[in-house]
């Protein structure tokens, strides 16, 4: 078990290292002068602040220094939590901007991911081997998982928001609302949250349902299932065992799919102008704010790594095989 987790941590550390290096490398690899590229569509035309920005960038990039020195500097400032200064919201530090956006992204991502995983697994297991459900609702699952996240968001925003008028379609809360711990504000917050959450949930739900359906069919064909059936065990017991075994690969699937779901959350935020990391990425792109963009990238990578690690730990807890393999075989 310890070896299993140690290996995983090594992979995550390596991934982090690669991500940081990508961040450092890409602006330097791309053709042209990165500073010019960045400032070409920089914020307002205010000469003085442009000058300050240029000075800041030249100092930060330190392009006159040797490459290894630049690379080292990059890591040093990263270690201090310094991701640079935003162009878009100059002179706010990127870290600060990102930290204020993270709660919104998490508010969408965590419930949508967890609920869709649980519900999708239940539903997929339920539908498997029931001919009727298999032929009617599972194609729907395939359509859902094939739906681009933003398109479902657009449809929901249009149908339930603009046409039906049931939900607001933009922002974290209404313009008139004053943030506070009072009921009107919270309900406003929830009603703004609901549509982006629902569209994220639905697309992910389709994927989990199908994954579980396919997994459990294999588990029901597995030999431990056949043995139970030969001994006359009721279908309920066989299915319960199959479900439990099929959930394990679904847990691995959760780790593998995390990147896709995060991407989905970013896209959904953009549709609903929800002020999370996705929206920041869009603003960063529109304002050519590369510090902000790269900061967002690092934040997301770190988030995905942490989530992966949590999944690994859960996996060790639920799968006896990962725990026992390391103790050396008993006989």
């Amino acid at each position: 078990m310890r070896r299993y987790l140690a290996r995983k941590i090594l992979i995550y550390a390596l991934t982090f290292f690669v991500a940081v290096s990508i961040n450092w490398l890409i602006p330097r690899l791309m053709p042209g002068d990165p500073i010019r590229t960045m400032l070409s569509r920089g914020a307002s035309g205010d000469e003085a602040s442009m000058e300050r920005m240029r000075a800041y960038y030249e100092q930060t990039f330190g392009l006159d220094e040797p490459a290894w020195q630049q690379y080292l500097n990059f890591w040093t400032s990263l270690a201090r939590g310094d991701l640079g200064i935003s162009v878009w919201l100059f002179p706010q530090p990127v870290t600060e901007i990102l930290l204020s956006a993270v709660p919104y992204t998490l508010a969408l991502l965590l419930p949508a991911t967890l609920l869709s995983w649980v519900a999708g697994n239940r539903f997929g297991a339920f539908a498997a081997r029931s001919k009727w459900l298999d032929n009617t609702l599972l194609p729907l699952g395939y359509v859902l998982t094939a739906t681009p996240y933003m398109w479902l968001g657009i449809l929901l925003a249009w149908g339930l928001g603009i046409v039906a008028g049931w939900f607001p379609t933009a922002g974290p809360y209404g313009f008139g609302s004053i943030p506070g711990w009072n009921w009107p504000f919270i309900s406003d917050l929830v009603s703004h949250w609901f549509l982006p959450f629902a569209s994220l949930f639905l697309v992910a739900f389709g994927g989990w349902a199908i994954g579980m359906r396919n997994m459990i069919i294999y588990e029901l064909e597995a030999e431990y299932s056949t043995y139970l059936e030969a001994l006359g065990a009721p279908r309920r017991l066989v299915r319960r065992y199959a479900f439990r075994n099929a959930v394990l690969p679904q847990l691995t699937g959760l780790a593998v799919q995390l990147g896709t779901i995060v991407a989905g959350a970013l896209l959904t935020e953009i549709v609903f102008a929800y002020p999370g990391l996705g929206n920041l990425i869009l603003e960063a792109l529109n304002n050519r704010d590369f510090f902000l963009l790269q900061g967002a990238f690092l934040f997301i990578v770190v988030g995905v790594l942490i989530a992966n690690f949590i999944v690994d730990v859960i996996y060790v807890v639920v799968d006896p095989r990962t725990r026992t393999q390391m103790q050396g075989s008993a006989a």
Partner: protein
Amino acid sequence: MSEMEPDVRAVQAAEGLPAQAGPPERRLGESLHFALRNPKLLIGGGVVGALLLTGLVAPLFVQEGPNVYVGPQAQAPSAQYWLGTTNFGQDVFAQFVFGLRSTFLVGLVGGGIAAVVGMVVGFTAGYRGGLVDEVLNMITNVVLVLPALVVLIIAAAYLQARGIALQGLFIGLTSWPWVARAVRAQTLSLATRDFVDLARLSGRRAHSIVFREIAPNMSSYLFMTFILLFGGAILIAAGLDFIGLGPTEGVSLGLMMHNAVTWGALQLGMWWWFVPPGLGITAIVGSLYIMNVGLDEVFNPKLREL
């Protein structure tokens, strides 16, 4: 061909076919038999085929380019403009059919590159083993945890000019890891089989063993993998386009959605602008997935319903 025989037997063993399965031509016939009677495969394949044909043929009948301002602005679908026009008077139908083309192209390039990279890495890691395996495995795992779309955003943001093929290339280079893992696992299990041992003992070279003995035994699996990659590449491309990192020239379905949202199609109720592109993507990718289930049932006798 003298090497035919062991392959066939291995396929049967690998796929758990009953001993009565019979000679290879029968088996192929059997697959075809089930393929032609599999509604999932037929419907999925039909939809993909129809959309592909539309993407290939329909643009030939579009007089002007898809981005030319040809008609009245923001007009609902009509006999003249089947899918209406945009805020700027562009023909949505023209954009849609050209967009289909780009979508298939990006799926083909992205899915193809991912499949090739994934297979090469997977075969090498699985067959070579040892240190090579360790290193490739590590690389695979690292790329696997990196969120592809976000890496692509970073890379695309710095490009001045972006084309569809380049986009496909980038997508391919980030979405291969799970293929590599799956192919590696399958190679490991096949590499210990008798017929591979035989080939090895007879002094055949590694790449020849991989391509003539191992790969053919996984061909149905590899084909299904490619289909999934194809669909995945389309979705990633649509996401990139939607953020505004789509092709700088031309048109794509994701870009149409980007423009529709950017220019207020939702608020203006111009559903004809944002429904078709998303529907097109969903139809293609969804049909590919359903087709894949159908193929799985055809190739894997255990899943067939009697």
